């Protein structure tokens, strides 16, 4: 395994934001994580995204970018950027339903853990990344994986994608095409 299994995503059009991401599989303590998250424990202030619906990095980039745009123009539908990212990944209109299907739930075993950082506080991103990774390793009982397209598409569950995205006849096993459909859903969300 690589030395550095977490990643920092960046957007040229939003230079102040850094997006910390790490991918965990075989997570054993989802119920505990969820209850701490609901309690508002600041060590759990991340977006926990169910890995089974994720196919590619492009999907994440597309959803996060949309959220940052909506944040800039004050058009977010939910309270925080983290919920908004989950909301934008999902096709459902109801925020709770999105969180149940695309966020963390007792049945999820693979988690993409993501945190939006607004780097005005002077901390260097490298330090911050190590700090966050340490917190996650302490609190998440699972195996950390390299966050890349290979991991995502391998861990994705196509039947879940078909069901949760309500694809019906438009579902296809051609991953590049499926990827395009999912990105379309994110980009057209809310219109």
């Amino acid at each position, binding site marked *: 395994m690589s030395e550095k299994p977490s990643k920092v995503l*960046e*957007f*040229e*059009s939003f230079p102040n934001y850094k997006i910390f991401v790490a991918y965990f599989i075989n997570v054993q303590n989802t119920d505990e994580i969820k209850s701490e998250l609901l309690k508002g424990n600041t060590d759990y202030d991340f977006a926990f995204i169910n890995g089974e619906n994720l*196919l*590619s*990095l*492009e999907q994440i*980039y*597309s959803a*996060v*970018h*949309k959220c940052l*745009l909506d944040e800039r*123009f004050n*058009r977010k539908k939910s309270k925080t950027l983290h919920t908004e990212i989950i909301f934008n990944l999902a096709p459902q209109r109801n925020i709770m339903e999105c969180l149940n299907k695309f966020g963390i739930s007792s049945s999820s075993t693979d988690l993409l853990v993501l945190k939006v950082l607004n780097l005005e506080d002077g901390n260097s991103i490298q330090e911050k990344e190590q700090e966050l990774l340490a917190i996650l390793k302490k609190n998440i009982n699972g195996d950390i994986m390299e966050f890349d*397209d290979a991991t995502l*598409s391998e861990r994705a569950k196509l039947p879940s994608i078909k069901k949760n995205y309500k694809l019906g006849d*438009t579902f296809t096993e051609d*991953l*590049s*095409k499926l*990827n*395009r*459909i999912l*990105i*379309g859903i994110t*980009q*057209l969300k809310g*219109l």
Partner: protein
Amino acid sequence: MSVEIIKRVEQLLPYHDLKLISQGAEALVFITTKHPYLPKNYKSLDLSTDADSSKYIIKYRPPKPYRHEILDKQITKSRTASEAKILNKLTILNFKTPKLISMDAPHGLIIMEYIGYDLNNGDISSLKNHLWLLEKQQESNNYNPNVANDASVESLLKMVGERLGELHLYDIVHGDLTSSNIMLIKDSESETGNVEPTLIDFGLSSYSSLSEDKAVDLYVLERALISTHPVYATQYNEWMLEGYCQAYKAQKSMKRHVEVIRRLEGVRLRGRKRSLLG
């Protein structure tokens, strides 16, 4: 006027390089080399998006000062959204068009994939530019040999008709067909580098199963060809309609084809707009 509009886009997209390539009454079209959210070295799962060429189209609908402000915002948002939805729908249907990448409907912005290539004279590969180039060659050749209406042009125009037929069979009408709203792309699968036409600019498209609307689509294209390619238009139109018929034949929907063509004859007599006198 136009300088002001360009300033507005630059404000909305400060990190994009913008090259204006077309300006109409409704929208401005730019080329940019930056993807709105993917890093430069990222290779998309979607192999048909050629990351190396890294060119993207930005379509911007500026606010129209002649409309009431609130109404203008609604119209801009709904037209942008409707165009994006149709692009997305067509991608799902496997109909070749530029793919949607990102959008900001309230500001009238759509970012999509760039298709097409540069012609020999450096122009963008729209059907119009392609045909103009051939027509010019033909004239300088003293009409000999026939490059502007040879077999390759024939197959191109037939394919245009086929694409349009396929679109109509999905019950989508384009709404603004001209030879500059048809882009030629190089078929990546064929080694001979065959070009094939692709319809673009779905800004005025809508869903309709009416033969009337489809006939008007054909009529608008016919008129556009007549005014941009006056010398060869009759021949072009004939080929285009042949291809259009092919598309229906392939789907065994000749009944619907007959109806559209009958309508087309009516539309030719009265023009694009229906008489309001009942």
